[in-house]
């Protein structure tokens, strides 16, 4: 390990010494809000990506167990960092601030939903999943419900969730590539998507867990540094910006007159001032068009979705024992919360800094970067922030593409379609799966169907309606059998299908019956609020009406999972 670290230092330090003056000189271009190619941020981004690949090579997996489960040698804190890095995607880094910037208090439903779900995950699942001892969600579903068909369906759902989750990430990558390279959005998505695909194919099989820990450090540092600078510049309690910005929220609510802030202005020369805007912080404000029901439905759907995401559940297989699985959630949640406490700072300061109509309409999903720019943060640091956003998306996308490709090649192709497939053929199928998924995701991301956070929320609702009920009942009720699981899955799948169909139809301008009613109560971002309970109920009723779960499954649950 020490030797590995030394070899990394040997390469990285001289590289940085050589490049820093170039970046500093080149970073000037980053001051433009939109526009041209920015060489400074580009170099920072390339360095970070090279670092990830390098770390991956140095800590590469030696065999399948090492790859999937990092040899089960990861510490609690290290595993927590890996969970956080895996979790902190473009939706967390860019999307959350965008949601609060665009809809005020309503955006906090996403903050609460994406963190509160970890409580469910811990108290209901983490330790038990580790004890069950499988590598993938489809493995668990196939074994627990003693069905190859369920395994195949589990794999397909895992692929769909990965695709849905990736779409939001590709939108984020596209926006950041657009900002860095000055391209139009479509080309930015295509180029950014191709880069992330190449990165995944190169580094996907390399030291994933170690890479995630390093990614976490880079992502969080790039996110926090501008916050200290911004709160210091605009005279808030900068030592702890996550508390200091409270005064900024109150400033937005009460308004900041011009004469109180003489000398403070944004990078475009506008005063640090805003008219009283309570709609930013007041709950379900009419000005935002959001309601109390939507707040509750989103928070609930995201919570149960969190406890049903295959790539999140998979993280609990890699720790040495159940106790470590539990503590890794505690640490993981803490590391995630560091970012989630910080994201509203960007949206709040961004609101004041972009309040002047002359600033114009900014892409909400890039508000983190725009806030730093409008706040006159040094271009080099803005570049680092943008590179952090891309890294957040890259780290999640590569994990999701690998997870999706594993589901395709391991769970679907080898376990169901062609059990005699040679290792070479398996590898080809995995790579083919990765490329296919990336193409599908790029095509959907180009359509710009919603904000990053909203698009990612679709994956959560899908997971909440399908995987979550199967895991919850599979672990906690031995009476849940194959027939119940199939029926529950059909119910959850049906609700998901209706919600997503209405969403796509709405975007295409196709009028379906009861459109207003269904698109409100089963909106694509939160349909799990009803889909998950119905799926659980269906599973219970059908299980009760059909034959008992086989004795060996029940014995396994009693003797291995709950002992």
């Amino acid at each position, binding site marked *: 390990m020490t030797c590995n670290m030394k070899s990394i230092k040997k390469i990285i330090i001289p590289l940085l010494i050589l490049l820093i003056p170039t970046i500093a000189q080149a970073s000037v271009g980053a001051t433009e809000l939109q526009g041209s190619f920015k060489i400074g941020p580009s170099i920072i981004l390339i360095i970070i990506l090279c670092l990830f690949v390098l770390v991956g090579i140095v800590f590469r997996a030696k065999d399948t167990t090492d790859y999937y489960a990092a040899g089960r040698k990861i510490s609690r804190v290290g595993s927590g960092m890996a969970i956080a890095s895996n979790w902190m995607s473009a939706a967390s880094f860019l999307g959350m601030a965008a949601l609060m910037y665009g809809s005020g208090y309503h955006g906090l439903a996403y903050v609460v939903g994406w963190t509160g779900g970890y409580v469910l995950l811990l108290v209901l699942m983490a330790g038990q999943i580790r004890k069950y001892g499988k590598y993938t969600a489809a493995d668990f579903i196939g074994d627990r419900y003693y069905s190859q068909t369920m395994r195949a369906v589990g794999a397909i759902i895992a692929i769909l969730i990965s695709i849905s989750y990736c779409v939001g990430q590709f939108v984020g990558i596209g926006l950041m590539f657009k900002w860095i390279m000055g391209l139009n959005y479509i080309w930015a998505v295509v180029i950014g998507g191709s880069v992330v695909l190449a990165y995944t194919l190169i580094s996907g099989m390399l030291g994933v867990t170690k890479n995630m820990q390093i990614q976490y450090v880079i992502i969080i540092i790039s996110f926090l540094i501008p916050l200290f600078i911004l709160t210091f510049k605009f005279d808030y309690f900068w030592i702890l910006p996550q508390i*200091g910005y409270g005064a900024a929220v109150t400033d937005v609510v009460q308004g900041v*007159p011009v004469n109180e802030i003489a000398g403070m202005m944004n990078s475009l020369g506008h005063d640090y001032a805003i008219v009283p805007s309570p709609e930013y912080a007041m709950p*379900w404000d009419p000005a935002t068009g959001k309601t109390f029901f939507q707040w509750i439905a989103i*928070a609930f759907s995201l919570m149960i979705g969190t406890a049903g995401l295959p790539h999140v559940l998979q993280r609990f297989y890699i720790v040495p024992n159940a106790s470590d699985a539990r503590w890794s*959630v505690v640490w993981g949640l*803490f590391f995630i919360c560091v970012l989630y406490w910080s994201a509203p700072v960007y949206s709040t300061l961004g609101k004041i800094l972009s309040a002047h109509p002359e600033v114009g309409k900014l892409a909400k999903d890039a508000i983190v970067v725009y806030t730093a720019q409008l706040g006159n943060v040094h271009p080099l640091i803005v570049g680092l922030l943008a590179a952090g956003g891309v890294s957040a998306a890259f780290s999640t996308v590569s994990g999701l593409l690998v997870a999706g490709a594993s589901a395709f090649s391991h769970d679907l192709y080898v376990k169901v379609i062609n059990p005699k497939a040679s290792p070479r053929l398996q590898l080809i199928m995995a790579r083919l799966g990765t490329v296919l998924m990336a193409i599908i995701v790029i095509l959907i991301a180009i359509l710009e169907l919603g904000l990053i956070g909203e698009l990612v929320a679709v994956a959560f609702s899908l997971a909440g309606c399908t995987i979550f009920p199967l895991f919850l009942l599979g672990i906690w009720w031995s009476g849940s059998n194959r027939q119940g699981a199939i029926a529950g899955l059909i119910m959850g799948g049906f609700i998901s299908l209706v919600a997503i169909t209405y969403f796509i139809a709405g975007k295409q301008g196709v009028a379906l019956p009861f459109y207003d009613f269904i698109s409100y109560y089963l909106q694509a971002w939160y349909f799990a609020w009803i889909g998950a309970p119905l799926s659980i109920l269906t599973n219970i009723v059908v299980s009760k009406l059909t034959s008992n779960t086989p004795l060996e499954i029940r014995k396994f649950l009693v003797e291995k*999972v709950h002992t």
Partner: protein
Amino acid sequence: MLIGGMVLLKYVFVNEIIYIYLIKIKKLFIMDENNQFHISFFRPTTERAKKNRNKVLVLLVIWGFGVFGFQILLKVLEKSTPEPVLTEFNDVWSQVKSGQATDTELQVFARSVLQVAGKVFIEPEHRKAFDNGITWATMQLADSAQKTAIMNALISFEKIAADIEVLGEESYGTAKNNLTALAIVPLELHPNELLTRLLPMELRSEMADELTEENKEIIEKALPLYTTHNRSVLTDTIFLGFPFHYFYTAVFLLIMFIGICWFYSFTTDKINKKLHIYE
């Protein structure tokens, strides 16, 4: 009663299919006593499992009340509260609408609409109507010489604004300052006021002659939308600089989640140690 009904069905109607399904329905309510390998969260069979169930239930109740209970409380306590600017607008709106407003009333109208136009969430369609109101009121208040000067300055500003690529261009700044200096006079705005900074951005030359009936309707409906908020003691109390409800949701709930997770992991390890359980 269920069992009685089953007996009746079996011996009176002798309907085998119905009987079989009633047996299955019975399973919904009655546990299989002979099932030795049965796991159910609500019916734990060991001391440790019982303790775990109780702990999980207590933590989930705290979690549920902490998240959803607080939002429900916010909803219960909330009152639809107008901003002062809405009251000012309402005081003069009927006169403005009927075209009988005095100069002072027009000034109040223009200032209140300008303040709302400067808010953080404005629909483009609403902004257009607000701009119509502001421009029309400014022109109504100006005398003929001022009107000509403002209109010339506005047309010139709009032309430069359409042509420039960077906001910092000198010609743009000069045109904006000229327009501002002229337009604030009829509205009696102070040069250092925030509304003065917003004014040139909300004036539109094509909207100067009249406040259209359509835009009157939009203003009447949209202004209360932006200036009425759901407020209560929870939103108006300031805590560590935050409105309390905002602090609770954005900061405290996350601390609570970590606290719950820490408590669960700590106590589970402790119980396992006490009962000599090695996972």
